């Protein structure tokens, strides 16, 4: 465990990054699970239209932080959260927020893909049909549009009516991505989306992330340092402190990797 005294700088470093507005502001987020503190006083500013990476060893609390944003943490018993997350001027953690509507604006791609046991076509439309409503005439176009964006159209255009469970793991994950962006979210949370995938699927998903930054902000949790270099604009490095995960450093990749404490963390990730 890295002790606090070893950290050279505790204040987050901001570089003037194209002066884009901040879309998501974490303020002193702390999370406890059954008495044990998992995250400690996390404060982050996430700019709009960028890909923001969260790096850190396992157990640092990255996934938990992500689940705070879309309030999926509410579904699991035993968690307590303090602090606030500001989105469009409102505090997400407040009780008055309609969490279901929030999740239509903030999409999530999980580490393990879970497609619904229906056809590929229906999977893409799953959320859209029920939450927004979409006239029959537009459906085929919508499916094509989002499958193209997820780099799946060429592979699947002939078998849209086949069950989605027939697909390979990489294809299923891309299908989940298509399903999520069909909701046109403003923020896309991705929790290690490529950790279980082969190189080809990983490459396709990374191309997708690079292209989708124009439409929404991506927060990517990853283990892979090279992936962070390729895909992200800014990263934050979390380490598992004595009292839960803490942010060590934020900034663009080079600045963070130059930080000595972060380098130690990354070395440990590499060894894992």
């Amino acid at each position, binding site marked *: 465990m890295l002790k606090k005294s070893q950290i050279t700088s505790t204040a987050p470093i901001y570089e003037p990054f194209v002066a884009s507005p901040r879309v998501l502001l974490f303020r002193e987020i702390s999370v406890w699970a059954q008495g044990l503190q998992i995250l400690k006083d996390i404060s982050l500013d996430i700019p709009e239209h960028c890909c923001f990476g969260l790096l850190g060893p396992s157990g640092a609390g990255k996934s938990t932080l992500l689940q705070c944003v879309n309030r999926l943490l509410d579904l699991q018993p035993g968690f307590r959260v303090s602090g606030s997350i500001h989105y*469009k*001027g*409102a505090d997400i953690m*407040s009780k*008055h*927020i*309609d969490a279901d*509507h*929030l999740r239509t*604006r903030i999409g999530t791609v999980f580490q393990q893909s879970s497609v619904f046991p229906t056809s590929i076509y229906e999977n893409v439309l799953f959320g859209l049909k*029920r*939450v*927004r*409503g*979409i*006239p029959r005439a537009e459906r085929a176009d919508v499916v094509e549009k989002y499958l193209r964006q997820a780099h799946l159209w060429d592979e699947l255009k002939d078998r849209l009516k086949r069950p989605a469970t027939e697909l390979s793991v990489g294809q299923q994950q891309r299908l989940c991505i298509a399903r999520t962006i069909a909701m046109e979210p*403003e923020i896309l949370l991705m929790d290690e989306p490529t950790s279980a995938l082969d190189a080809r699927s990983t490459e396709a998903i990374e191309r997708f992330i690079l292209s989708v930054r124009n439409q929404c902000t991506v927060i990517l949790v990853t283990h892979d340092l090279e992936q962070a270099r390729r895909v992200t604009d800014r990263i934050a490095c979390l380490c598992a402190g004595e009292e839960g995960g803490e942010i060590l450093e934020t900034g663009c990749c080079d600045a963070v990797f130059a930080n000595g404490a972060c380098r130690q963390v990354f070395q440990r990730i590499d060894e894992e």
Partner: protein
Amino acid sequence: MRGCFAVPEPTVDNKLMRRRRTFIDLATHTIAVVGGLLCLGIVTAVLGWIILRGAPHVDLHFFWEASRESGLAGGIRYQIAGTIILMLTTLAVAVPLSIGLALAATVYLPRGAARSALQGFLQLLNAMPSILFGIVGYLFFFHYLGWGKSWLAGGLVLGWMILPTVTISLIKSMEAIPLKQIHAAAGLGMRRGQIIRSIYLPQSVRGLFTGSFLGLARAAGETAPILFVATVFAGVSLPEGIRDSPVLALPYHIFVLAQDSLQAGAIENLWATAFVLVALVIGLSLTVLPFRLHNSNRRDHA
């Protein structure tokens, strides 16, 4: 607060859709709560009635005295004795047979179709109406063997009836034994019989225990199987032989009394007997509940 997230939506009648979705959400929650509370209400009402009407009339005398005046007065001493005799016989019949069947299903039968056929057969047997067991027993013991009503016949019929329950529980615990242990034992040179004795059987005691208690709970309360082959209403205390020795039994006692339940005294005794029977059955079931829940928890984490 909600307005902060209002993004201009493409479709026109979106307000309608939102209202419909909220309605579905609310309606589902309401259906669930109403269903659950009604269910709980019925459960509590049934149990409550039995306890409230039956418990006050149960005291030590009730257990110890024999019935008098055709069940209108007195206690249920020999009914309890009869039920206990039947349960013990049932256990003695069901346990060896279950062990044999469980070993067949996990060790001796070839994998695949034969094993699933046996398991399927057990599930089907479990769903059979209990009266059919009684009638077939009647056919066999009375018609074919020429016996009169006999406690042994009752035990055999009941044992046959609870066979699936005990066997399935045993099979589950045997299948939970990790294959690595079996291979390790075989690697040491142990023969199959020795492996069974030292690994399969000791580690499935819990399954045997759970299954037996559940089966006994069912056997204690069943009337239909013993109706024709084992029980009478009065005139007997303890069985004296085998062939022509009926017994009394708690469920049959209730059954007969319920058909002529006109006198007030009988009603009191009826409730009291019902309470004793229900307490026995639920007691047996609840004893093994922690073991069953523990097993299913383990399965979920696997």
